[in-house]
């Protein structure tokens, strides 16, 4: 089952601040909704355990997250793969940063996921909305954390 979404966040922080944030695997992991634990492996990768509930499938999924920044500081690819409960999820998210005249930064993101196993078969009808929620909340949390930092 292949799914695709996109969205946009306007973050009240400079592009450099946002870029630094999304280059930190620990911070990125902390933005995942329903995070149970995370373990930074190196400068570009982190393992995270996340609580998942899709239809009747409820439990913890383990994800390996890899950051792939492109030179120039404008684009970041995020690879999230893992699963649990007889399910597999491969999620690829791309984020583009644009600095705005008012000092804020626009983060345009695109995500695609391929989902297999129990989650895809049982949760089929609610999966799209659920996965969309996970990815959009993650970027929303990026904004919220950076907004908090700006406010603080």
């Amino acid at each position, binding site marked *: *089952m*292949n799914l695709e979404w996109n969205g946009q966040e306007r973050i009240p922080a400079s592009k450099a601040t946002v870029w630094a944030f999304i280059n930190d695997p620990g911070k990125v992991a902390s933005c995942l909704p329903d995070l149970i634990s995370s373990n930074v492996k190196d400068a570009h990768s982190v393992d995270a355990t996340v609580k998942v509930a899709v239809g009747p499938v409820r*439990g913890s999924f383990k994800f390996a997250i890899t950051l792939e920044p492109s030179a120039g500081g404008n684009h970041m690819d995020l690879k999230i793969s893992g*699963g*649990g*409960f*007889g*399910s*597999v999820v491969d999620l690829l998210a791309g984020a583009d940063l644009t600095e705005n005249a008012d000092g804020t930064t626009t983060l345009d993101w695109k995500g695609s996921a*391929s*989902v*297999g*196993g*129990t989650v*895809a*078969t*049982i949760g*089929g009808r609610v999966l799209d909305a659920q996965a969309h929620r996970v990815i959009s909340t993650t970027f929303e949390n990026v904004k919220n954390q950076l907004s908090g930092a700006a406010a603080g």
Partner: protein
Amino acid sequence: MTTTEKLPDRHSIGQSMKRKEDPRFIRGKGRYLDDIVLPHMLYLALVHSPYPHARITKIDKTAALASPGVKAVITGEDLVAAKLGWLPTFHGFDNQMVLAIGKALYQFQEVAGVVATSREAAADGAELVDVTYEPLPPVIDPYQSKLDKIILRDDREAKTNHIYHWEVGEREKTDAAIAKSDVTIKERILSPRCHPAPLEPCGCISDMNGATGRLTIYMTSQAPHVHRTAFSLVTGIPEDKIHVISPDIGGGFGNKVPVYPGYVVATVASVILGVPVKWVESRTENLTTTGFARDYHMDVEIGATKAGKVTALKVSTTADHGAFDAAADPRKYPAGMFGIVTGSYDFPTAFAEVDAYFTNKAPGGIAYRCSFRVTEAAFAIERGMDILARKLGLDPVQLRMQNFIKKEQFPYPSPLGFTYDSGDYEKTTKKALDLIGYDALRKEQAEKRKRGELMGIGVSTFTEIVGAGPGKHFDILGIKMFDSAEIRIHPTGSGIVRTGTRGQGQGHETTWAQIVAEELGLDPQELLVEEGDTDTAPYGLGTYASRSTPVAGGALALASRKIREKARKIAAHMMEASEDDVEWKDYKFSVKGVPGKSVTMKEVAFAAYTNPAPDTEPGLEATYYYDPPNLTFPNGTYIAVVDVDADTGAVKVRRFLAVDDCGVVINPMIVEGQIHGGLTEGFAMAFMQEIKFDEGGNHLNTNFTDYLVPTALETPHWETGNTVTPSPHHPIGAKGVGESPNAGSPQAFVNAVMDALSPMGITHLDMPLTRDKVWSAIQGAQKKT
């Protein structure tokens, strides 16, 4: 409404005796596999592949083994070491992995087994088995498989996804006849992948006794003896050291014929751990991994004269067999009895071919209460005849009537190689037309059409082929498809009856008692029927393909007659008459020409133990192994009346009549019950059931919210009737009926809906006819006009 053709007055056969098994089932006193709990028993849970096609690079058991209660983790490699990695499939032309080795070939394929102290601990342990996969692109569509761009089976020498080509009939002659025909039709008709979904899923308890070396397997088995032999052949354990017990079964429908990985892994676990191991699959496991039904894509061509006389039939089928060729078809018939596709019609020539392919889906194909591919064949020809009738502008009943095989043509050699035993299709159909008031319905339809209302009448005049079968043609694993009966009459005239079949709700405990009671003049209430225990029952091939009454039923009658022959000797001794003067009349032995001198079978039974004739062995029992000379060919005429709501696509089945001819009826109530159940399943196939996959190979119908089983709420009211055309070769003239409603009904529903939609120019829609499919077709047709 039920109308049953009156049978001659008989002692037991033809009586609607209440089912002897029902008090046990109704009161919750049945004993199913999961009711059985043995001391020290462990539980097996299986790990399944989330991918439909993937290399397995590593299986790490560490975390699972450390999980509380886990006693063992078994992988495909472990089974290879025990020489049990692969099993031959039932018709012997393919091998099947027990647990995935190197590669997973369908989603939910079994990859490992975890044995633990409770079902929950086993499930928790299974979650912790860490399998590393490298996903491969899946092949889900057989037409893609055909291209051989991705070869699914590394283990096979031939680097192709093509499994076999099978054909029967005369290709050139058929092609020529079709080319010369005034009118032809050609349609691709799909019999979609569906699943028998018995309410009780599959399971077993394997119990290897280390002290005796004897393996007892309690299993949900429709064919316990075949399973015993298969276990012996595969494991090398001598067959006398294997005891298979098939307890009460909560529905089988062909789903409980194959050998599944759970059985093998539970057995290996019991051998390793020395305690009983239970495996009971979940609903999802049942729907995703065990024997499915159909997936036949059939290109049907029929030629006819302008007047509507059929000239030729050609059917070319692409069959999707899933990852292994695991269909339990007889060796000579890789496409089962698909040759019945000429149906009830007298085709001068015909040709059928089947090409089977592997795909990344669960293996199987022949389950669901009539296959051996008969359901597919009946659907193809009955849809084809309807499409032809429309093209010819003939009433579909008229087209059928003028092409029926006539009563006097039986035994009828069909152009595809079967010899139909008997039938009177015109009589059965006329009865159905009268009972439903066909002409009045057509008038009503004409009026409704004027008002733009969508009413449809669908007819199916099918011929079934059951009772496998003559050992000269049919086998499972090389074992001829005979069946057996053993009858022991006790001194007081009651008895015990055992057969090699195994009922799953069909009412064998009653029907078998009635056959024996009829033959011996005994009380059917005092004849205990026992099946399913390989230590006590005579060897048989099991219950599926509507074979129990045609085969074991024959064995029962002939074993009874052996007893009667011996009883005649004892009766002669009792009445001090010559054996030649003793006749069996009115269910007792009498001396010819001496009125009033007679003894009952009950009296003979007592004498058999207390006063046998001097030269006669004491006791009264017999065994018979019956290899039938031919298959049996039940038939029926089914008529569905539907109303289609053009705005929503909803179909209401207003009436449904099934007139069956299954030869001599042993218990009309049981036959009617069988037909009700089968019609309900046929209704589900026509309107609700399909196993679907998304483009990534994800199985989309893994539970009863996504795979629908009809409840009383949506099930239509069934009307039934019958005609009786006995089978000339069967000892009591019976033909079998269990699968007739499934083979006969789906096309009646579909023909009715297509009849309703025909004014819109819609020719064919594949099952299931869901609301959205019907609505979309109506919308599409309206856009065109």
